[in-house]
């Protein structure tokens, strides 16, 4: 019996390496992606994200290691079950929206009647129905991005890989796309979401892997990772606290934001003690809150640490 609380692994990357001449783009990379979850594939520019994704979607093959998708070795037959939205998106400039969508669907083995039905449905959902017969060059960048997304999901893929899907979208459209993603997500689908925008990853992803220079840096569920990093972080706002904040034996580092300060407590310091000492020394506390590190902090720390 399959344990329902522990979702099945849909994509397994095992000890994958890819080199271009002397340059190792990906080095001994391993991680698992689970069904029904949104997986964040994170890393700075040039970390090897695109190279890895290209191996997952079968554009290139790894030099070493293996990639298993739905318990099968990656093959061209599996490509029809993957929807890939590349970072650098492209549409045929002079072709009508509907013709492009039909072509991309046909390339994934969808019959035209099924494709037409889904095209109408998705154009309606994206509020682009009246653009169906227009050429790409007539569309705004945001609209083109939505069309690109439709092209990615027309064949109802089991694995959806989105490389920077929100770049160039305004905040309203980002929200819109997040809603659409939420609708698409179900217990049978796997979504891999590659980005270097940590705020978005933090909102959307259940699990992440962070890679840098072709190697894995951190992986696991977002919750666990944050907990392991977030033992001694306080969001603080108050006055008359300079003396205590300057005490290096208690507070290692202070990061000042616009509306609050982030206090990194020294190792082994109990936040309760810090609060007590503040109150005793006459600090007027308007905010004192244990927080977790943002994914951004973890990202920066890990990537800087490696440099």
């Amino acid at each position, binding site marked *: 019996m399959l344990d329902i609380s522990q979702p099945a692994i849909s994509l397994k990357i095992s000890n994958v390496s890819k080199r271009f001449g002397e340059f190792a783009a990906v080095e001994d990379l391993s991680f698992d992606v689970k069904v029904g979850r949104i997986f964040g594939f994170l890393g700075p520019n040039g970390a090897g994200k695109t190279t890895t994704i290209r191996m997952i979607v079968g554009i290139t093959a790894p030099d070493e290691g293996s990639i298993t998708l739905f318990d099968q070795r990656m093959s061209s037959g599996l490509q029809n079950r993957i929807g890939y939205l590349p970072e650098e998106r492209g549409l045929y400039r002079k072709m009508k929206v509907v013709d492009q969508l039909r072509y991309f669907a*046909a390339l994934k083995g969808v019959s035209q009647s099924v494709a037409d039905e889904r095209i109408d449905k998705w154009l309606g959902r994206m509020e682009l129905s009246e653009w169906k017969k227009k050429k790409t060059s007539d569309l705004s960048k945001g609209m083109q991005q939505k069309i690109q997304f439709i092209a990615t999901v027309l064949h109802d893929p089991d694995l959806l890989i989105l490389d920077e899907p929100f770049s160039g979208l305004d905040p309203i459209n980002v929200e819109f796309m997040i809603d659409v993603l939420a609708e698409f997500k179900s217990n049978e689908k796997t979504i891999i979401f590659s980005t270097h925008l940590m705020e978005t990853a933090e909102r959307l992803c259940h699990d992440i892997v962070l890679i840098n220079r072709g190697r894995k840096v951190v992986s696991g569920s977002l919750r666990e990772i944050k907990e392991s990093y977030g033992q001694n972080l306080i969001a603080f706002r108050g006055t008359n606290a300079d003396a205590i904040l300057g005490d290096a034996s208690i507070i290692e580092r202070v990061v000042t934001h616009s509306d609050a300060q982030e206090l990194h407590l020294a190792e082994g310091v109990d936040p309760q003690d810090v609060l007590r000492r503040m109150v005793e020394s006459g600090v007027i506390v308007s905010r004192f809150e244990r927080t977790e590190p943002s994914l951004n902090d973890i990202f920066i720390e890990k990537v800087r640490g490696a440099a």
Partner: protein
Amino acid sequence: MTKFLAIVKHEYKKVVLKWSFLIGTMLLPLLAVGFAVVPALIFSIKGEPTRIAIVDPTGNITPRLRENLSTERLAERRREAARDAVTNISTDQNEQLNRTAEQFQEAFIFTEFDSTGRAAESVRSELTSMIIRGEIDAFLIIPTDIEASDARFEFRSRRAGDIVTNDSFRNALNRAVRSQRLANADISEERLAQLSGNVNFDAKGIDDRGEDKDTSGLMIASLIIGLMIYVTLAIYGQAILGAVVEEKETRIAEILFSSARPFELMMGKLVGVGMAGLTQLGIWVLTAAVLISFLAFQSDLAPLVASVPPITPLMIVYFLIFFLVGFFTYAAIFALIGSMVTSVQEGGQFAFPPIMLLLVGFYLSFAVMRDPNSSLSFWASIAPFFSPITMPVRILAEMPPFWHILLAVAVNSIAIAGLVWLTSRVYRVGMLMYGKRATLPEVLKWIRQV
């Protein structure tokens, strides 16, 4: 296979449903029709007849001149001209203009001008003032002694710029004077006709079976076929280049490669665009057939049309085969270039070498046309890159032995297989390389890459 068909269909529709395809398909036949029909139409428009006064002290020239310019004589000259055209198609432009000019009927109205007993000066000044008053358009003063070596025929016209009319008039006058001189030498009219008839220059090629064949229309037909293949290959090669660069530039290639194998995508493109080319060529061949049969009914050109070697359905099949051979050869080269460069402009610069190859093939076809059985013709019609143009021309000039055609197809198929292999190796890597143009060492590395 369904994916491959989807790619073929997509590429075919992309070419055929463009305005440029429609315009190109229509334009060439229209141009051809234009070149064939429009000049004849323009020259058949009758101008105002030229009123001409003739001073003829001999009294013998005018009747002959009139006769030479009469309808029947003009018609006869036209028949001769048509016969000339058949045996000598390189007739210069001027001759052709003259012939067309002779289609004027009653282009001249003659007025005899009695000059007996008057001084040459006064006659000349009166005629000149008649031209000024608009009573006549031109005058001709014939000298008394037409056989004198310094005999001068004075022709003055208000329409001195009308070269066509003047030339045909001069020709008629020449013939009139010449025959009068002969008559003066006591040669009878019949004898004269006999003596001054054109020779019957019977130029025909002899084919392998020892049968006569008329080669006069061959050059035109070969030129048209050679040009048609050259133009189509150049256009469709560049279309492939453009399509490949577009997919690379817009990064569509990434989506395509995640959906189908690069080889499938590349071959689908070649086959789809190739079929579009065949469609266009098919339309042109049909139009040409219609045009030729239309011209055949125009009696003047009938002998010319009849001398075009008969184009059998087998020949058309061969032409289409060699078009495809050429298409795949050059399309593969253009696809190779397209996957190496980063923009259409850059691709345009690199399109030069294959275009040069095509041009050499086109020039070689002239040599083939002149001597289809030479060893140069043999090698030129077998060699890859040139065969697609030279072999159809050779087939038209003289059907080579079947094994030559078979050899050409075999040699070229091997060349195509090699080119397609090479291109597919470069294509699958090059299409995903952005930013800069690939260097030769890089490309060589891609080819070796597994």
